[in-house]
Structure formats: structure tokens, C-alpha cells
């Protein structure tokens, strides 16, 4: 409604990203609000224990956006479910999650309930499953407000309308009376964001918040998320598989592979000077909108099974830099180009100045088989013979 055709990117110009010291600005490191250390999650399975998360450490600073990126099965979602204590009882969780001077993993269920939603809010991928189909969206937001604040129903409803307006839902007052099924996917996700904002949380964890949405709607939701963050001053953990979303939103980035962070750094460090071959491979695999078509460099092979992982670097079998040393023990995260830029690779330094195409062998199709197929050998399926 009030959006303009050429609204400037909310993160502003490139200059602003270079960590200007103005307090409270996005991207500026404040105190640590959430500190995850040695987080380990194991699920029992018929094939043996599944180590979905194997030692995640990160510190989330006030006001920052930490992007967690990884492919399916890398453990990025399980990590945040463990932080929120939302995993089933069968999951074995070790390590600590320091928040507000306490370890969340040791709180009683009642104490944890007070933290969830009010101090740490979560936004999931599918808004239809996080909303109750039989209540109006206004009532659900009001419920979230009243769950943690002692206010009248009417005041809570007024706050709900105000929140709907903040996430840019047009005619917020009328929309508050709608049921979730009456809204589009993008609108529903905004309602979920409004609920997350309801209690001024210190941390918002957004798990693939735009994955189910079309790109034009995704852009609107990312704006709404940024608005929610500005409004509440919360730090955000943004979990996604989309490197483009990470590039636009995250101040710092954690790259996960096989249940472990393999590289961590500022967005610029990760995208411009990656020091883990996996990160470089991911970037080389991406078709680019902003460049004419060039050959992609896929990463050969597939991620390892997290049941009975062999010793050594989990990326080893797919890695062009792989040597015997990599099989001996799993490389630890260590400092590379800057104090905050860590990579778990013995050969991180050899990636300096390299593009994905320089490092990864370009897998080519089996040309002999292709030529045989093209000639239609031995099958009589020659296309020309049809007529």
C-alpha cells in the first residue's frame, strides 16, 4: 500500500555494512545474548545412533543477524530446535545454551515455557502448521500477548492490530478477524512474525522463514522480518539453505556440514574469501542471476550418512584438497583470514585467491556412452528411422 517502487534496500549502502560503530545499528556487535557451546544432539535409530549435531558453538550478539546455512541434513534446524528445547524426548542433547545468565538445557519445563515466546521467539517454515486453524489471527496474536503480559483482552487485541500493521498487513483491523485459511501463505507468515514480535523478544530464531514462498513474496517477508528486528531490537538467528538470502540479511554466517560448523565469519569473509572447500564448492554450484551463463562446478558425491561416521574430515570424500592427513582426525575450527573468520580445514590457506572452478574437478558426462547413445548403436531406436 505505502511501499514505493524503488524502495531502497533496507540494509542501505555497502558503506553502512562496514561496521560503523554507531550503537544499536544493525551489524554492530553488542553483548552476547545467546551462547551455544558444545551442543551435541543424538537420535536413536534402528541403524545405530544418529549424531545429527556434533559440537556446535556460537555466540549471538545483541542486534546482530547470524545466518546458519547448510544443505538438507546438515543439522541446521536440529541445532535451533535443541536451543528451544523442542526436540522429542528420545533425542539426547548435550552441551550448554547460555541465555540471560542461565543454561536453558537445565531449566525446568515451566521455566522454559516462560522463556519461549517471550524472550526467545521462533518462526517456522510452514505458517499453516504454526497457526491454529480454528481461531482468528487477531485472537492468536492477542493470546501470545496475554500469555506473558497481564493485560485486558481488549488491550491485547489492540496490540494485535498494531503488530499486524507493523508487519505491513493492509487493513490490519479487518484482517485481525480473518482465519488462517483465508490468508495467503505470505500473509500467514507475517502473522507468525507478528506473534514472534508480540513480547519484544531478545532473540528471534527464524527457520527457513521464506522457503515455501514465491520470490516476490519472499522479498516482502524479509522486509517484515527486518522490521520486526528493528522494532524489538532482537538478535536473530536466520536458518536457510539460500545463500542469496544469507548474503542480503546476515551480519555473520555459520556454514554447517554433517552436523558441525565448518566455517564461520562475516558475510563478506564467507562470500569473498571462503576458506573451507565446502563453502567454496557451494558458491561455485550456484547459477548466478547477475552473470551470463558459465559452467557450474558441482561438488562431487553426496553428504555422508551421520550414522557411524568414519573418523576424519566429513567432507574429505568429496574434497579436492583431501590427503591422508584429513582421514586421521577431524580438523578443528581455526582462525584464517581474520580473528573472527574460522574454518575447519587443514588446507584453508591454499584456497586464497582460488575460484571454485580452480579447485574442483569439473565432472564431465561419460562422453563415450553419450556418443554411443547419440549414434543409437545396437538398438534400432535411431530417430530418423521412424518415418
Amino acid at each position: 500500500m505505502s511501499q514505493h517502487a524503488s524502495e531502497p534496500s533496507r540494509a542501505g549502502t555497502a558503506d553502512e555494512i562496514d561496521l560503523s560503530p554507531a550503537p544499536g545499528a544493525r551489524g554492530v556487535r553488542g553483548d552476547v545474548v545467546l551462547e551455544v557451546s558444545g551442543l551435541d544432539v543424538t537420535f536413536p535409530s534402528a541403524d545405530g545412533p544418529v549424531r545429527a549435531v556434533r559440537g556446535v558453538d556460537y555466540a549471538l550478539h545483541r542486534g546482530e543477524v547470524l545466518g546458519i546455512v547448510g544443505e538438507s541434513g546438515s543439522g541446521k534446524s536440529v541445532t535451533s530446535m535443541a536451543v528451544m528445547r523442542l526436540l522429542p524426548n528420545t533425542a539426547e542433547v548435550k552441551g550448554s545454551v547460555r541465555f540471560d545468565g542461565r543454561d536453558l538445557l537445565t531449566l525446568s519445563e515451566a521455566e522454559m515455557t516462560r522463556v519461549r515466546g517471550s524472550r526467545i521467539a521462533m518462526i517456522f517454515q510452514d505458517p499453516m502448521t504454526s497457526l491454529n486453524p480454528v481461531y482468528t489471527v487477531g485472537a492468536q496474536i492477542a493470546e501470545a500477548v496475554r500469555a506473558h503480559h497481564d493485560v485486558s483482552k481488549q488491550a491485547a487485541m489492540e496490540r494485535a492490530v498494531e503488530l499486524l500493521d507493523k508487519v505491513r498487513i493492509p487493513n490490519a483491523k479487518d484482517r485481525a478477524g480473518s482465519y488462517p485459511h483465508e490468508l495467503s501463505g505470505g500473509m500467514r507468515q507475517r502473522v507468525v512474525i507478528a506473534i514472534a514480535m508480540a513480547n519484544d523478544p531478545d532473540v528471534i530464531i527464524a527457520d527457513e522463514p521464506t522457503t515455501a514462498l514465491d520470490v516476490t513474496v519472499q522479498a516482502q517477508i524479509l522486509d517484515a522480518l527486518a522490521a520486526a528486528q528493528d522494532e524489538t531490537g532482537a538478535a536473530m538467528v536466520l536458518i536457510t539453505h539460500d545463500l542469496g538470502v544469507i548474503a542480503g540479511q546476515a551480519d555473520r554466517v555459520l556454514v554447517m556440514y554433517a552436523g558441525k560448523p565448518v566455517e564461520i565469519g562475516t558475510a563478506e569473509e564467507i562470500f569473498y574469501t571462503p576458506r573451507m572447500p565446502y563453502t567454496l564448492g557451494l558458491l561455485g554450484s550456484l547459477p548466478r542471476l547477475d552473470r551470463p551463463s558459465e559452467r557450474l562446478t558441482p561438488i562431487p558425491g553426496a553428504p555422508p550418512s551421520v550414522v557411524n561416521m568414519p573418523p576424519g574430515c566429513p567432507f574429505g570424500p568429496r574434497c579436492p584438497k583431501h590427503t591422508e592427513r584429513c582421514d586421521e582426525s577431524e580438523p578443528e575450527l581455526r582462525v584464517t583470514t581474520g580473528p573472527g573468520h574460522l574454518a575447519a580445514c587443514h588446507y584453508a590457506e591454499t584456497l586464497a585467491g582460488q575460484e571454485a572452478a580452480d579447485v574442483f574437478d569439473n565432472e564431465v558426462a561419460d562422453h563415450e556412452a553419450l556418443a554411443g547413445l547419440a549414434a543409437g548403436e545396437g538398438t534400432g531406436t535411431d530417430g530418423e528411422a521412424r518415418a
Partner: protein
Amino acid sequence: MTTVEQGTRTLLSVRNVVKHFPIRSKGLIRRQIGAVQAVSDVSFDIAEGETLGLVGESGCGKSTTARVVLNLLPATSGEVLYRGQDLTKIGRSEMRGLRRELQIVFQDPYASLDPRLPVNEIIAEPLRIHGLYSDGGRDQVRRLMQTVGLKPEHGNRYAHEFSGGQRQRIGIARALALRPKLLVLDEPVSALDVSIQAGVLNLLDELQSELDLSYLFVSHDLSVVRHIADRIAVMYLGSIVETGTAEELFAGPAHPYTQALISAIPLPDPRKERARERITVVGDLPSPANPPSGCRFRTRCPKFANELSDAERTRCVEEPPALVERGQGHPVSCHYAERRALL
């Protein structure tokens, strides 16, 4: 019947295709009370060896168009000319013969492969159906597996034993078994992780140049389409709004929807991404059962909302813009089309 002259390089010519799905009343009689206008007057050509990327968001009619092209769904009206033959008018047996030349690869590599058949048999099935298996079918299957980067020794395994990327390769091998001329690829890499997706895209590139295939590549992902397509058609609410070579379209998109689409896709480059000019659309897709009058995009169009005068807007409301060349270098269906550099 209209025919394409023999010797021209056009393989497929889609002319004014319309596909409506009836909406029926409840109760016993189930009268038709409306229609979802999934595809409204879509036309395009695909030359031999060419890739046309059909791109748009959910509900724009791109998959329906692909199914009409393959005669998997009957068109409400219009023509689909494959080498001069109108597929919408030919009989079942003739179509069966042509199926050899027109194949499809589906999006979901989990749902599109029979879980009860070993991979050998999945790939052999089209050969058997067309009575070609007895003539060296076994070797052909081995060769197909090798071609798509699978080990022929794994032919006795079942689909569930393969990863998503490998399954998609099985789907491609099956589609190639009959040596088709045209492959319709319906979101073939959308379900795959990026590192796996890249391998499948490279494979499609190589298959095309070796086997002289034409592709109709349907996708919501403009980055993938830019990578693979020679020409691109952008769809919105059942119509093509802009079409041109991949190069032209990205150098100077002229339709406000194409511009919004390009500017909404995040670039994996923090400095560029944060300094970009944004063109945002507002609101949600209108119902295709009751599309807006005149220009179908006007209800979400940033140009309509912010730049046009009331007099100019009247034209958008009253007159549907045709998809024609408007001095922008390529056809675009906007009365006020204007090229913009966005990347």
C-alpha cells in the same frame, strides 16, 4: 490444418493455447459456474536444439502449459504444432507414436519413480512399451545409466536406495530412452540441494549439445533459467508477459513484473545484494478464476501504483496489453513498457 513449412528449424509451435478448468456447483447437477483460467492465450516456438525457459511463480500456469504441450491435458482451444502436426487434434494411436519424441522429467524424483521396480526396469519400461527392448535394450539401458552418470552395476537397486540427485538422473535416463527430440523439464532441479543441482544442470547442458535435444524448461527459479535457457518466457496469471533471449531479458527487462521478479531474487554476493535497487510488488496473486480486467498485473504493479497518471491507468484497466514488440527489443505485454538495467 496449419503447417510449419518443412525444412524450417522450428520443432514446436504453440499457438494461442487456452486451458480452463471448470468450477462446478455443489450438489447433484454440478453445473459449471465458472472457470479457472489457468492458461490464457499462450503462444511460443521452440527451435531444434534450443532451450526455452518458461518462468513464473506458483499458480502462473507454467506447469499446465507444459502438460498441454505434451497433450497430457487437453487444451480448451489453440494449437500445439509439433513438426507441423497439431497435437490437440490427432488421435490416440498417432499420439502414442509421437510420445517417443516428446518426453517429460518431473520435479519430484521421489514420486515419479516406481518404488517396486529396479532401476534397470524403470529405464527399460519405455523401451518395452514401444517394443524396442528386444533389440539390444539391455545394452541401451547400461549406456543410458552411464550417460547420466550412474554406475550400470547399480541397475538392480531400487529407487529408494539412491539420493535425490541420482534419482533425478534416473528420471532423465528414462526420458532419454526413446531418443526424444523434445524434453519437457518441469522444475527438474527444484527439489535438489544446490551442490547436487549443479551436477544435474551440467548434465542437461551436455546431453543437449550431444543429442541435439530441445528443452522446454519450466521453473520458478530465474537464476537456473538464466543459466540454462537460450530464450525465456515470463508468465504471470496465465499469460506470457515478456519474452526474449536470456541475454536481452536480463540486460533490459521491460515489463514491471519481470523487473520485480529479477529484483526480488537475492544475489549470493553481500555487497551487490545490499546495494541493489528494489522494485517491490504489493499484495498477492489474484484468483485466476476471476482475473482483473485489462492488464492482469495491474493490481500488483508498482508502475501502476506509483508512476502512472489516472488517464494512463484507465488504459491498463480497460485494455489488455498484447504481447508485442514495443520498441524495447523484444515482445512485452505492458502499455508502458520501459527497459531498466537492474543487475
